[in-house]
C-alpha cells in the first residue's frame, strides 16, 4: 500500500485540518470533537443541516459545507461512522433556534450513532429531525433487512435540503424536501477495483483482472453480482436498467443525471459513462434537464462509478439551481 499519509491513525485529523486551512473562507474546523461547520456560525432563525459518516468518501460531506448546503459535517474514522459526541457538538453549534436536520446515509452504524446523538441533542433542547437516505437500488429492500444503502444520491438530498433551509423553510418543511428528494432518487454503482483503507493496508476486496462488481456500495460492500468486464456501454445498461425500473421513471419525466466517480476512475471514463446513460434516457423519452459528473461520493481510490437519476419537479429544480458555495459544489455566487 502506497499512500500520501503520515500515519494511518492521523489520516482523518490531518486531512480535515488541511481542509480547514484550504477553505478558511468557507468553514471552521473543530478539532475535538471533530466536525466542520460553516464559517460565521449559526444563522438565527435558520434551520441547521448536519450530515456525516465515515471518512473516505470525500468530498462528501465536508466539501458540501457552506452557503446553500450543509451547516456542518461530521467525519468519522475512515469508513466508520462517527460516534454521537461530535454529532451532538456539531448539532448544537449550528442550531440557530429553528432546529437541526440530520441527513443520514442508511448504514446501521450511521443510523444508530445519529439516533443516539439526536436523543442527546434533544435533551439539550435542540429539536432534531432525521432523514435517512437510501437511494441504492442494488440492495433488496425489506422490513426485515438493513434496507437500502445511502450512496451518491446523498449529494442531491443535501443540496436541495440546504437550499430549502437557505430560503427560510422551517424544520419540518426542510425535512419534507429532503424526504421527497430521497424518494425520487435512485442510484447503482460498479467497481473495477477496490480502494485501500489506510489502517487495513490491503484492498477491501479483490476482483480478478477481468472481473467487475455490479451494485457495489461506497465502502466496497459487495453488490449484486460479479461479472466479466464488458464494454462501458453494456455496463451502463446493467446499472441504468434497474434504476429506471425501480421508481419507475417514465417518458416525459425531467431528471437530474449524475455520474459519480468512485475516486480512482478518470473523468475521461466518467464522461463515456455519462454519454451512454444520456443515450438510454433519451431513447426512453426521459429528459435530462440537469446533470452532474465527477468525484462527489467516493470510496477512497476505488475504480468505478455510480449512476444516479433523480426525478425533478419544479420545486426540486429550483432548489437544485439555487446558489451554493461550498468547497466542492459551487454556483450562483
Amino acid at each position, binding site marked *: 500500500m502506497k499512500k500520501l499519509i503520515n500515519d494511518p491513525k492521523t489520516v482523518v485529523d490531518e486531512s480535515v485540518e488541511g481542509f480547514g486551512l484550504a477553505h478558511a473562507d468557507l468553514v471552521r474546523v473543530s478539532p475535538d470533537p471533530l466536525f466542520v461547520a460553516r464559517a460565521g456560525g449559526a444563522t438565527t432563525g435558520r434551520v441547521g443541516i448536519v450530515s456525516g459518516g*465515515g471518512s473516505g468518501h470525500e468530498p462528501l460531506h465536508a466539501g458540501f459545507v457552506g452557503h446553500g448546503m450543509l451547516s456542518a459535517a461530521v467525519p*468519522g*474514522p*475512515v*469508513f*466508520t*461512522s*462517527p*460516534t*454521537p*459526541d461530535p454529532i451532538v457538538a456539531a448539532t448544537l453549534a449550528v442550531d440557530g433556534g429553528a432546529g437541526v436536520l440530520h441527513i443520514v446515509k442508511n*448504514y*446501521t*452504524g450511521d443510523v*444508530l*450513532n445519529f*439516533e*443516539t446523538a439526536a436523543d442527546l441533542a434533544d435533551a439539550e433542547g435542540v429539536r432534531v429531525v432525521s432523514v435517512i437516505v437510501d437511494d441504492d437500488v*442494488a*440492495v*433488496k429492500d425489506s422490513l*426485515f*433487512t*438493513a434496507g437500502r*444503502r445511502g450512496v451518491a444520491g446523498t449529494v442531491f438530498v443535501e443540496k436541495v435540503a440546504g437550499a430549502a433551509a437557505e430560503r427560510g423553510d422551517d424544520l419540518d418543511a426542510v425535512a419534507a424536501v429532503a424526504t421527497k428528494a430521497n424518494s425520487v432518487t435512485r442510484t447503482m454503482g460498479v467497481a473495477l477495483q477496490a480502494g485501500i*483503507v489506510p*489502517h*487495513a493496508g490491503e484492498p*477491501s*476486496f479483490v476482483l480478478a483482472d477481468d472481473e467487475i462488481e455490479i451494485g457495489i*456500495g461506497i*465502502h*466496497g*460492500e*459487495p*453488490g*449484486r453480482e460479479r461479472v466479466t468486464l464488458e464494454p462501458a456501454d453494456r455496463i451502463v445498461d446493467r446499472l441504468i436498467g434497474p434504476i429506471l425500473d425501480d421508481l419507475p421513471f417514465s417518458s416525459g419525466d425531467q431528471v437530474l443525471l449524475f455520474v459519480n466517480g468512485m475516486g480512482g476512475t478518470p473523468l475521461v471514463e466518467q464522461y463515456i459513462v455519462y454519454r451512454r446513460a444520456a443515450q438510454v434516457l433519451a431513447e426512453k423519452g426521459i429528459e435530462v434537464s440537469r446533470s452532474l459528473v465527477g468525484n462527489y461520493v467516493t470510496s477512497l481510490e476505488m475504480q468505478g462509478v455510480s449512476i444516479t437519476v433523480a426525478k425533478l419537479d419544479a420545486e426540486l429544480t429550483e432548489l437544485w439551481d439555487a446558489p451554493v458555495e461550498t468547497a466542492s459544489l459551487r454556483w450562483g455566487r
Partner: protein
Amino acid sequence: MTLDLSWVTTWVDDTVAVVSDNRLRLSELDREIGDGDHGENLDRGFAAVKAKFDALPEGSTPGSALKLVATTLISTVGGASGPLLGTAYLKGAQALGDAAELDADAVVALLTAARDGVVLRGKAEVGDKTMIDAWTPAVDAATAAAASGASPAAVLRAAADAAVEGAASTEPLVARKGRASYLGDRAVGHRDPGAESSSLILIAAAEAAEATEG
C-alpha cells in the same frame, strides 16, 4: 459465591487484552462480509475504556463501572457495534442498580438486559447473522444454569460456551442485518465478526469470574 467490582475490573482488563490480541482477526472476519474495521473499532473503544479504568472513581459499583464502559464505548467505537455494545453495557449496568455483590440471578439479569439493549437498538433476531446470535443463546444458557443452582462463574461459563457455539452457528447463515446483509448468499460460509467479538467478551467474563472465585 458472589462477584464484585474486582470481577468487573478483571473482566474489563481481560477484554481489553483479548480485543487487542484479536484485532486483526476480527477485522479480517469483517473484511470478508463487512468493511474490515470491526477489530479496529473495538480496540479503539476498549483502549479508551482501559484509560478510564486506570482512574476509576472512588466508590464505584459494578453497575457504575459498567456504565462507564458503556458511555466510553458509545463515544469512541462508532460504527454499528459502538452503539449496540454500548447499549448492551448501559442496559446491563442499569439492571444491576447499585448492588455491590452479584449472585447468579444478578448475572442473568445483567446478560438479559444487555441482550435486550442490543435488540432494542438493532432490531435483530436470532438467525439474522449478528451479535444477537451469540447473545441470545448465552442468555438462555445462563438462565438455565442459574435455575439449576450454578455459581455466578458457572453461569458465565455456560453463557460463554453458548456464545462460542452461537458465533460458530452464524457461519452457514445469510445475513439480514448490518453490512453483511448486502451480500446475500455470499455471506454464507463466513462467521459474523460481531458475534465472534461478543463471544470473546463473554469468555473474558467467565474467566474473570473463575479467577475471582478461584
